């Protein structure tokens, strides 16, 4: 079969396909150890240990979420205090204009809301999603990446990338077939 993906244009990188989780994990670790930076693993399911195998730094998402949560909490308290006690106070059942107990529910909800939005949007932004086109989508076989196959892609822009050695690295790690992806 053709060892070469269809399509014109300059080479974007190489794509290797694997059958099983252990195989792709092992290959990923190799690629990592070979010093590649601009490579990625594509799997239909989240594989734990993969991030270590790829040497991914732990995400800072939690901090963002914490920040959003804090913002939500203070916004909630400020909103209730300012609107009901400062800007337009009115006598309600002879109760204090601002009372913490009554302010808890709304504060809590706003905390959770902002934090959750932070987590969701933060994740998408950090992942550069939505990204409706990607060179890999050109590859017919890659469709199985969301089904039952595991892939490793190494980008041509990686300083250590060399069409031949990189290909041998992937093949030797059990990648079959290894395809060239046009950019």
């Amino acid at each position: 079969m053709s060892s070469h993906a269809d399509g014109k244009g300059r080479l974007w990188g190489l794509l290797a396909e694997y059958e099983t989780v252990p195989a792709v994990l092992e290959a990923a670790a190799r690629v990592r150890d070979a010093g590649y930076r601009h490579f990625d693993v594509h799997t239909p399911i989240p594989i734990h240990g993969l991030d270590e195998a790829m040497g991914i730094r732990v995400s800072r998402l939690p901090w963002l979420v914490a920040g959003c949560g804090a913002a939500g909490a203070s916004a909630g308290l400020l909103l209730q205090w300012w609107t009901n006690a400062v800007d337009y106070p009115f006598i309600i059942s002879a109760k204090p204009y601002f009372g913490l107990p009554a302010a808890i529910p709304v504060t809590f909800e706003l905390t959770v809301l902002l934090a959750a939005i932070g987590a969701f949007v933060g994740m998408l932004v950090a992942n550069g999603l939505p990204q409706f086109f990607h060179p890999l989508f050109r590859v017919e076989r890659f469709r199985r990446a969301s089904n039952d196959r595991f892939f490793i892609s190494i980008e041509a822009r990686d300083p250590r990338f060399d069409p031949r050695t990189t290909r041998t690295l992937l093949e030797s790690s059990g990648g079959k077939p290894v395809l060239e992806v046009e950019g």
Partner: protein
Amino acid sequence: MRQGLDRSMGEGSRGSGGLSLGKRYWRSLEELAASPAFRERIQQEFPELAEELVAPATRRSILKVMAASLALAGLTACRWPKERIMPFAYRPEGYVPGVPQHFATALELGGAALGVLVKSYDGRPIKVEGNPAHPSSLGAATAWAQAAVLEMYDPERSTTLVRREGGQRRVPTWDDFLALATEHAASLQASGGAGFAVLAEATSSPTVLALKNRLEEQFPRGLWVEYEPVSRDFERTGLAQAFGGPVRPRLHLERAQVIVGLESDLLFGHPEGLRHARHWGAARRAEGGTMPRMYAAEALLTVTGAAADHRLALPAGHMGALLRQLAHELARAGLALPAGWGAEAFAPGSPEARFAALAAGDLLQARPHGLVVVGPAQPPEVHALAAGLNEALGAVGTTVSYLPDPEPGRRSHLDGIARLAAALAEGTVQALWILGGNPAWDAPAELDFARLLAACPQTVHLSLYDNETSQLCRWHLPRAHPLESWGDARAWDGTVSVVQPLIEPLYGGRTLAEVLAALLGEAALSAHDLTRRTFAQQWGGGDEGWRRALSDGVVANSAWAPLRPRLNPEAVEAAARGLELPPAGGQELVLHPDACLHDGRFANNGWLQELPDPITTLTWDNAATLSPEDAQNHKVRHGDVVRLSAGGRSVEAPVLVVPGQARGVVGLALGFGRQAGGRVAAGAGINAYPLRTAAAPWAVRGVHVERTGRRRLLATAQDHHVIDTLGMAERGRRVGSLIREASLAAYRANPEFARNTAWAKARPLWKEIEFKGEHQWGMAIDLSACIGCGACTIACQAENNIPVVGRKQVANGREMHWIRVDRYFAGDPADPEVRFQPMPCQHCENAPCESVCPVAATVHSEEGLNQMVYNRCVGTRYCSNNCPYKVRRFNFFNNFKGVSPTTRMAFNPEVTVRGRGVMEKCTFCIQRIETARIAAKNERRPLRDGDIVPACAQTCPTRAIVFGDLKDPDSEVSRLHRHPRAYGILEELFTRPRTLYLAKLTNPAAPAGEGEASS
């Protein structure tokens, strides 16, 4: 500010009646180009338009129209503008646009006047209140009097003359009628009035009386009879028997210590009910440590019976016997009485006997401050005996005085109508003029008056509505409403009031006097001229006196001087001997005027239809009331329709079970089931008149009750459903703490009995905001004084533009009254105690409604008012759920959609008309608070206690409701809040209500043996 309304002022105030001017324009057009042909054509093309074209107009009005006629391009169009603002040509003296004026006038019911003050905005009367200067009002007003405003603006009042000939309905003009009148008068001159009869409703008007006398002089062979379905003629006849001539009794409850009433609803169903209630309420507060005691024996539960300390439920037919029993007991206790007066009618130890014994003991002790009162529905003999007893007890002069009868020669109403019916039957009457009233509908059934009327060749009916009678008459004349017309009337005690118009007759009606005058060839004279003439003749005083009379609402010293008639003991004895116990067994039907609709004349008045009956809280309906036992015996439940038949006639009515009603008695209110006279009246209740005969107008013996198997949903304002035993029991448990009461003796022993110490120590969980306002408004309601008459509810409805929602919505629990009168029964269902509790918004300081509103549509003012912000309300109804007093009312629909433009003129311009989807409730009449505040500011003085009187407090006959500033320690309301009897209901919820209730005091006699009177 009140002021006289003389002729020119009259013009002024009429001029501003926008709608009336709309009418006037067409009248003037009619005058400008009035060819019969033109009218005919119009009538064919636009019948309703023709109705607008009929009344003549004055030269002045035409000029006004000319001035404003630029806008009348629409003349050629087929439709005429509904309303038109007309500028004043000049500003009448003493009139500031937008500032309400109060005019004193009088309203008459059944021949007794009630003096009122009418508040008028820019020529639109909007509120009727009692005239403090008037002896029968003392500042209070009855429900029907307050609802007169709505009646005047009723778009269904008859707007045109109607002529019915051979099935055709034509619309003549007043000129046509005047032509008829003069021609008729001429023919009568010849015959001396033979074949001519007048049937008038009872009136005390000196003007009408004078005209009547002249009529009788001119037409000696004519027949003049008066008829009222509800009258006090039995009393009149009875006293005539006792004293040898008719006299009018006047009661003085302010001096009474022991009152024994038989079927006497003297606090509510009496022409002077308001005055009685005022004195009663004042005395029952027991501030002086003494209070009167009332014994009431009655078949149906009435307001008076509810207020009594001892109540005996007894069929109406037994009252005579009971009175004899009383006489017997009095004699036994040492009162010198002619032998035949008393008789032992009841077995010793029977409730009746015990009641009589107890009452007799007290009456003797209280001499001369005892009083025996008998109701108008009791036969004359009972009245005669009662008069005898009062004489013997020395009550005459202290608790009862006698006044001359205005028309000693008058035939009694029942005789009169019977005589007329006979004449009609013989055919000796060719012309019958019916002035007011509705005899075709409410005449005694056996006379079959409707048929006789239809057969009479010439019949004329003057009436507010084109009603059952009008439709059988050849001519119907629209009558001017008292609030639209000049006239005069006398109170029960004879005090004369001048009736002055608040507005130009909306529908071009004429008064009774004017119609009579027409017959006497005085068509040229207006009601105003006629009234002034009478006034000049009888009271003189010239313009000065006239103006004074207008501004005071009463003519000074015009009351009758009391007489000292001599009692004829033999006559009394003769009467008394006739009073026997009726044979046992058999159901008795007790007919009674409805608490709201009276004899039915108010049936088209939505306010009165929706005003709950004080006892049954029934609205929009009358019902066959039964005692619980009887209901069981007849196997009927609340709402089952039964057929009541007597004397071959029968009616079908839904059953309403009323505790405390005498066994063997069916009660049925008159005034419902109208066939004509408005859409409001139609379909409300059933007509009881078919069961009413001249022989037995009130109590019908031997009535047959049978189930029909059908049911009717009754719209009661309370107990929207039959309550299960569980609920009954709980209600019984709660009433005690909601309505706290004690006997006078217990109160003397422990004045603080009502105080709820358990919750005094309650502390808030939060730091309460203190109210910084310079005034702190509060209210106090004295349950000892309140008799549950419901006048406050109507006053509030009129003042605050409260919508009428109709029978279906009331049945669904959606009535809108801002102040309701809660009614509770306590004790034994057979002989219950009835308790009333007026329930407005309590204006809680810790108002539960406020904290739950998400949009802060209900908030507290610095002056402690719980304010409802209509335009902020989104209608979550959470506030209503959280209100423990359930005083909030929600607009489930746009309740004003159907309201006619005419009726809209009755709105109080100072109160917002609430839209759909908005919550509303009592505001403590904040508009009155602000008005008084502004007035005080303008006069550069602080607000004084009593400056502000909410509508409910203003009209309360017993002055049970007091409003004022709690921050001012000397204010009446502060004094009452400090009163030992003061308590707040549901204090345990820590709502801190600003409305406190004063616990109820009762004054039952100590059980026989150590029985001693209260004083």
